[in-house]
């Protein structure tokens, strides 16, 4: 197994020693000339080295002995050419571990997620801040003030994307609400167009059919003003179907998108007890097998294309079969799958923030913090974090705003903090001594300005009376409305918009 890891590491040019220093359980960069001089960083370690071997070995055996249904001849052709045993009738393949190793070695370690507006460019890489992404895709808009919900509309999507643009805590977007009142033929394209018009941030969505790909690429490159290889302003989630299957059309679309420079976030989603075994650990084995089968496919189709491990595995509510995204088991699944993805040298997108709660209440706060913080502590490079309730069915403006404070708190918490003389403030402690106070100390003011203490934007910390019974949700909605009304972001050139409309119209004409 060490050879496996060493080969990956060697290919990327990073020595094993330096790589390990960035890995778990503790990564400490020691600065020689500052006593202490370490940076302390909060990280969870869940699986021992032996545990990781266990999961790895069983994921490999699933791939080698059971295999995966790719459901498309295009995939089977690629796998067969690479030496994998295939069955052309069932469109299944068994994936040898040597092939997995070979393909993992070509996945890039540094991945650009470009924004339409380059100020919003983000990278998945060691040393980069966590990239927080809005979640999706909800069916309903939830009215935080009345408690009612209704199906989402195009107008909702415009507002929601405008809100995302205006919230600094959000790094990249999904089109969080699926509008029911747009032309179903061009729905995906229209949603992406709205997402990129209202916000200059990187956009991620699904692309479900291969015949859509040329239109997507043309539209996206119109927005970007460049090839997607150079400016990947869009990425896709490519969901496998548990257990151990790929969706034909989405997979074929993924192959073309990978070739066009679009990063692919592979998202397995086995649910404990239904499409996955009733075991956190077992579901993670299935997750990793499905993930690696997709990594192999997309690397064979487009060697060196950007592939990311996105964790969608979760639990099912056994009475209703509904997806549970806020459960502690989901936090564990995230922890395990992020660790295992890192074991394979892959970048990750963890699931956090979204709640099973039906409103922005204590349950929503608790669930989102648990899963989001668990993903951050596991070292996930990217985390789905904002806006959704009721098992990702409903979008809420209040939740989006409140989630920003959750994310702000998480960012402060996982920040590298120096353990050194300049932060130990022994001189201040001596000067203030016994029974004094630190309010007037210059260091207090300086360190406050430098961000030693985080402040929320909306969460209520002032005295009780100052709120006069005003619920937190009301404040959050008010802030959302204010941002939406301000129309943040850089507008898109009229010529670009016209080009985008032509692409959508051409696509429609071709389909109808």
């Amino acid at each position, binding site marked *: 197994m060490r050879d496996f890891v060493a080969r990956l590491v060697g290919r990327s040019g990073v020595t094993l020693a330096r790589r390990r220093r960035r890995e778990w359980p*503790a990564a400490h960069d020691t600065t020689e000339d500052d006593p202490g001089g*370490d940076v*302390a960083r*909060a990280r969870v370690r*869940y699986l021992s080295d032996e545990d990781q071997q266990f*999961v790895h070995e069983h994921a490999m055996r699933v791939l080698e002995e059971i295999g995966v249904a790719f459901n498309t001849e295009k995939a089977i052709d690629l796998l067969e050419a690479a030496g994998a045993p295939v069955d052309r009738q069932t469109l299944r393949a068994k994936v040898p571990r040597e092939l997995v190793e070979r393909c993992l070695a070509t996945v890039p370690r540094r991945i650009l997620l470009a924004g339409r507006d380059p100020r919003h460019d983000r990278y998945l890489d060691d040393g980069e801040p966590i990239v927080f992404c809005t979640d999706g895709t909800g069916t309903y808009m939830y009215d935080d003030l009345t*408690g009612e919900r209704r199906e989402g509309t195009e107008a909702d999507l415009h507002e929601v994307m405008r809100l995302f643009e205006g919230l600094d805590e959000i790094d990249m977007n999904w089109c969080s609400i699926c509008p029911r009142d747009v032309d179903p033929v061009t729905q995906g394209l229209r949603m992406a167009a709205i997402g990129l018009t209202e916000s200059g941030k990187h956009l991620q969505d699904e692309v479900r059919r291969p015949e859509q790909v040329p239109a997507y690429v043309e539209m996206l490159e119109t927005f970007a003003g460049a090839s997607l290889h150079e400016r990947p302003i869009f990425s896709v989630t490519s969901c496998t179907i548990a*257990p151990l*299957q790929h969706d034909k059309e989405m997979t074929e679309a993924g192959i073309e998108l990978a070739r066009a420079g679009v990063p692919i976030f592979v998202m397995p989603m086995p649910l*404990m*007890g*239904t*499409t996955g*075994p*009733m075991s956190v650990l*077992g579901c993670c084995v299935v997750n990793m097998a499905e993930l690696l089968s997709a990594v192999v496919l997309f690397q064979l189709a487009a060697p060196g294309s950007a592939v990311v491990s996105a964790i969608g595995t979760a639990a099912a509510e056994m009475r209703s079969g509904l997806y549970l995204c806020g459960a502690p*088991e989901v936090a564990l699944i995230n*922890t*395990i799958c992020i660790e295992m993805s890192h074991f394979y040298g892959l970048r990750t997108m963890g699931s956090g923030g979204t709640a*099973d*709660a*039906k409103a*922005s*209440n*204590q*349950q*929503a706060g*608790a*669930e989102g913090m*648990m899963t989001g*913080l*668990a993903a951050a502590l596991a070292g996930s490079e990217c985390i789905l974090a904002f806006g959704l309730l009721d098992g990702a*069915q*409903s979008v809420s403006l209040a939740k989006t705003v409140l989630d920003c404070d959750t994310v702000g708190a998480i960012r402060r*918490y996982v920040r590298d903090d*120096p*353990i050194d003389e300049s932060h*130990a403030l*022994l001189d*201040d*402690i001596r000067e203030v*001594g*016994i*029974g*004094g*106070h*630190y*309010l007037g100390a210059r260091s*207090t003011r*300086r360190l406050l300005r430098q961000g*030693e*203490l985080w402040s929320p934007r909306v*969460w209520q*910390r002032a005295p*009780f009376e100052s*709120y006069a*019974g005003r*619920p*937190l*949700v009301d404040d959050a909605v008010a802030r959302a409305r204010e941002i939406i009304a301000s129309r943040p972001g850089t507008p898109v050139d009229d010529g670009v918009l016209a080009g985008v409309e032509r692409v959508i119209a051409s696509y429609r004409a071709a389909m109808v």
Partner: protein
Amino acid sequence: MAKARISYLSDDDKQFIHEKTLQVLAEIGVAYNSPKAIELLAAAGAQVDREALTARLTWDVIEPALATVPRQILLAGIDEAHDVVLGGERWLCTSDGLTTYWYDDLSGERRPGTSDDLAVITRLCDAMPEIDYLWPTLQSGEVEGALMPLAMQATMVRNSAKHVQDEVRTPEMVGPILEIYEAACGAALTERPCFSVTNCTIAPLQHDREMTEAGLQLCKRGVPIFVLPMPQVGTTGPGTVLSDCIVNMAELLSGIVLYQLAQPGCATISGVGAGVADLRTGGYIAAGPEIGLINMICVEMSRFYGLLTQATGMSSDAKAADFQSGSEGGMTALVAALIGADSLIAAGGLDGVQQSSLAKIVLDCDQIGALRRYRRDDPVDEAHALIDDIRDVGIGGHFLGRKSTRQFGRSEVWRPAVFRRGTFEESKGKSLVEAAVERAHAVLAAHEPAPLPDDVERHIDAVIAGYAASLERA
């Protein structure tokens, strides 16, 4: 077994903090404010100032004291069915306190708490299995100030059979309070320590004379002492999380040393209370990422010294049991759980621990349940990975009908009592808070702690009357 645990400080970091802590104790020292304390420290070789009532401590005084601290501590219940062990297998959770107001979850109004309110909340906490021991959650505001502490202890033992932890502020209260507990549990506290205390130092670097002298008596009577420093970043503590923790650790060790000198081998525990001040208002901030960081550093450093820990948990600055209370309480609690704190101050307070509410306690219990599931040790083996099922179901099947799905359904997936999981329609018409309040009332209606024997009741009344009379004479 796999378990989610955080490791934050490197060995070098711990050594650094240890050295800085020792520097504070050796160069600046601590004000004990008590001649009795100073005599104990002088006898142990510490450099003392008998006029200023301060002492400087060096490692040769501290290290032997740490060596006598027990590594497991019984927190006995009034009823032994509720005995728990700190440092044992179970991760313990307590209710929080001491709040001033009762918050009505349904109206959004609040009013000063009363004995009746304390009785209700205590009975609720007694009934909730997620809560292992209790702080008095809400003060009995209608009771005269000097008598309030005793009245509150009486309310606690009349409404709960679990272990109780509270402050004892003066040496004069020690006798009466311990008499109440020994009467309630029918044994000496040296045998069945059904009561423990928090002993708060005063930042920076001071002890409260009366509370300390009370502590010197309590440690000899078998009462576990949770030393609880509370420097707040930017006001009573210096301006960084790290430096605030150094002051915390210095105050903590000064307390541990004192009580070990007074009673070697007595139960002393590190209570983590360091926090953050709102520098605009000077107010206490109960929750925030810095509290999580402080928890981590102080728990790891306490463990470095071989001490058991009680960390700060779920209380919130939110004004109601809302999104903020879930999120910020969730952060500090998760961190405390993962850093390995032996116990967590959990079910509890709102508005910076100024108010208590039924809904918050019920909802916090669901959060505790979720945390226990997340931090549980889980086997990593074929039986638990259900490898055979994965093979048998293969590609494209499903696991619904599998025996393992039925068998592991209950143990593998945690189920909340109140948190909503069904369809949206099922939850309509009743908010989460309403459901939580309803559950609180249902629990209260079904739960009646066993009454104390009549002679014990009379004894408790006599103790309070006797104390009241002594106050009048004084």
